[in-house]
């Protein structure tokens, strides 16, 4: 892994990476909840935890991929809800639902392409570009679809399988999350393209000077993250029979960022990977599950989550200190 993190760690006498810290917190919470909460440590509840974070985790894999390349994709939730809502909407014209889903995927890829071009070619800072595009995408959807909530046709066998099916006792939603994560992990570690993403994220100017195709790499990142967001939307539609476009107004996109940052993917890019995303996702999953079982109020749940995000950012700042190199343009 490129980056100067390890030497800094040694200097601070702080050997644990953020990922290790997060895993440690997860283990502590897991042990405490298992000991104190009835039925927490049951097979059913463990599967419930994984199932409940499958959408969040899938989105976070896409977000993590972009953040590794020193970007950020705030369009993910907008793209997810509008992409799937578009598919459902055109299926009401009598188009086969599977075909409609393919059309939705194409639309989503086109949005990702546009976002990528805005960031890579027009060089709009990703946080602003994606914030504005998210708003336009959601707004356009809001004009086209009459209702916030769109229900998928009821008799689509494969969609039902995505929602309720399982293989060897593991729900499909968890398997899809696992597959997306595994593919992304392999892609980042084992392919040349994946290594180029790290290089671009670590130092975009140096990468470009050495002749790497940084612009196409950045564009591809946004296309892929949009398609991953669409996949998460399909999982959701399978699970709850429809899609609620108002999710765009919820804190979901921040929860996704929380998972990425919490897991230890530095916002300055070039570091971390899918393992970090999984660590972050599992912690949020355990925390949410425990707080729901304890029947904590909504406000206190949000408070606890925010304190953890703040803590993660603080730890991130200590472990990956900003210097002249990492605080150049493109860093948020």
């Amino acid at each position, binding site marked *: 892994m490129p980056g100067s993190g390890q030497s800094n760690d040694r200097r601070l006498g702080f050997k644990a990476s953020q990922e290790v810290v997060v895993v440690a917190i997860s283990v502590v919470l897991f042990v405490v909840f298992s000991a104190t909460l009835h039925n927490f440590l049951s097979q059913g509840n463990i599967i419930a935890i994984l199932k409940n974070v499958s959408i969040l985790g899938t989105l976070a894999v896409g977000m993590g991929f972009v953040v590794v390349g020193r970007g950020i994709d705030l369009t993910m939730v907008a793209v997810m809800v509008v992409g799937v809502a578009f598919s459902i909407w055109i299926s009401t014209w009598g188009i086969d639902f599977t075909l409609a889903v393919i059309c939705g995927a194409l639309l989503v890829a086109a949005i990702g392409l546009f976002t990528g071009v805005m960031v890579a070619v027009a060089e709009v800072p990703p946080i602003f570009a994606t914030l504005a595009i998210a708003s336009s995408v959601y707004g356009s959807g809001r004009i086209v679809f009459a209702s916030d909530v769109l229900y998928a046709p009821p008799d689509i066998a494969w969609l039902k399988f995505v*929602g309720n099916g399982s293989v060897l006792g593991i729900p499909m939603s968890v398997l899809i999350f696992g597959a997306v994560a595994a593919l992304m992990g392999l892609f980042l570690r084992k392919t040349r393209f994946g290594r180029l993403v790290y290089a671009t994220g670590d130092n975009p100017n140096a990468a470009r000077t050495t002749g790497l195709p940084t612009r196409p790499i950045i564009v591809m990142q946004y296309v892929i993250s949009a398609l991953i967001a669409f996949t998460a939307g399909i999982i959701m539609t399978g699970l709850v029979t429809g899609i609620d476009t108002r999710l765009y107004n919820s804190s979901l996109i921040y929860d996704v960022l929380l998972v990425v940052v919490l897991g230890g993917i530095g916002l300055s890019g070039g570091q971390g990977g899918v393992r970090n995303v999984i660590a972050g996702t599992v912690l949020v999953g355990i925390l949410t599950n425990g707080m729901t079982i304890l029947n904590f109020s909504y406000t206190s749940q949000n408070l606890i989550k925010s304190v953890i995000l703040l803590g993660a950012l603080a730890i991130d700042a200590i472990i990956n200190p900003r210097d002249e190199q990492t605080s150049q343009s493109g860093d948020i």
Partner: protein
Amino acid sequence: MRIFKKCLFTGLAALALLGTARVASAQETDQVGRAAYIDGVKGKKVIFVPISQGMDLNQAWVMVWQRHAARYGFTLEVRDPNGDTNAGIRAMQGAIAEKPDLIIVQNPDVQTYARLLKQAQAAGIKVLQVNMQSATQTDSYVGNDWIEMGRLEMGELAKHCTGPNAVSHKVVWLAGVQTGAANIYMRTGIDEVLKANPELQLVSDQPADYISEKARQITETVLQQHPDLCGIMGIWDNAEVGAGAAVAAAGKQDQVTIVTNGAGAATGCESIKNGLLDVIFNFNAPTQGEIAAQQISELLQHPDRKAGSEKTIFFGPITRVDKTDATGRNCWKPEDIK
């Protein structure tokens, strides 16, 4: 010649008589008070600030009101903040500055617009609140009796989850937004039923934020904790389908009764037929819209009455809908209202 003259006169006289008779009959057939009504309503300006027009109930109301406005010649403008409270405050401020004859408002919670509504009333603008009340009472409220709604829903669960045959006495309240009027008042009704049925055990009280996936996640977690859960009650059919999905995934559709309320849209009936929901207390949004339309007329007809001088409340009808009657008028589609 004379005969001709006589004929002419008689003819003219006859025509004149006929003419007066026509005028007289036209005066008689003008419905009493209609002209004054149209005079009072015509050309008036009404602004509606909803929570979000993307919700089924809002669409039904506005369709009914637009028809009413077109028929009687007043204008209705919808300023949709789309679920954003800050945008809603700006919309309200803008509406007050424009001095319309009437503002209709659906409050996101009891506090946000409370001061703005006082300002509007002080500025002489009449205010009609629909379905979601503010802490400030204004000229009129048309919508649900939410305390009764809480009582009805928890009462339904009490039927299933008390007595010797109940699988357990465990029930769940999947709230909406905790500061919303519906939420606050339903809780009062729920508490009354819980007090009257002390064996009922409220095992979880979590807000799903009107989002189905959140409702699903909470239900899935709670079901692990309480596999013998007896009932779930919620606040909006479009969110509780998520609870239904979690119950269905656990194969407990026969064990867990899911009760919620809704605008009476066909999508809710579909959810009952799919087995995701058991009972919807249907507040029939088109009917609610019609009641509000009459309230609009009343408020516009009496410009002499000072804003805020009279305070009225109209609770709309609530119908219990389950799989035996999830048809016909209990399940409206937008095209039926148009």
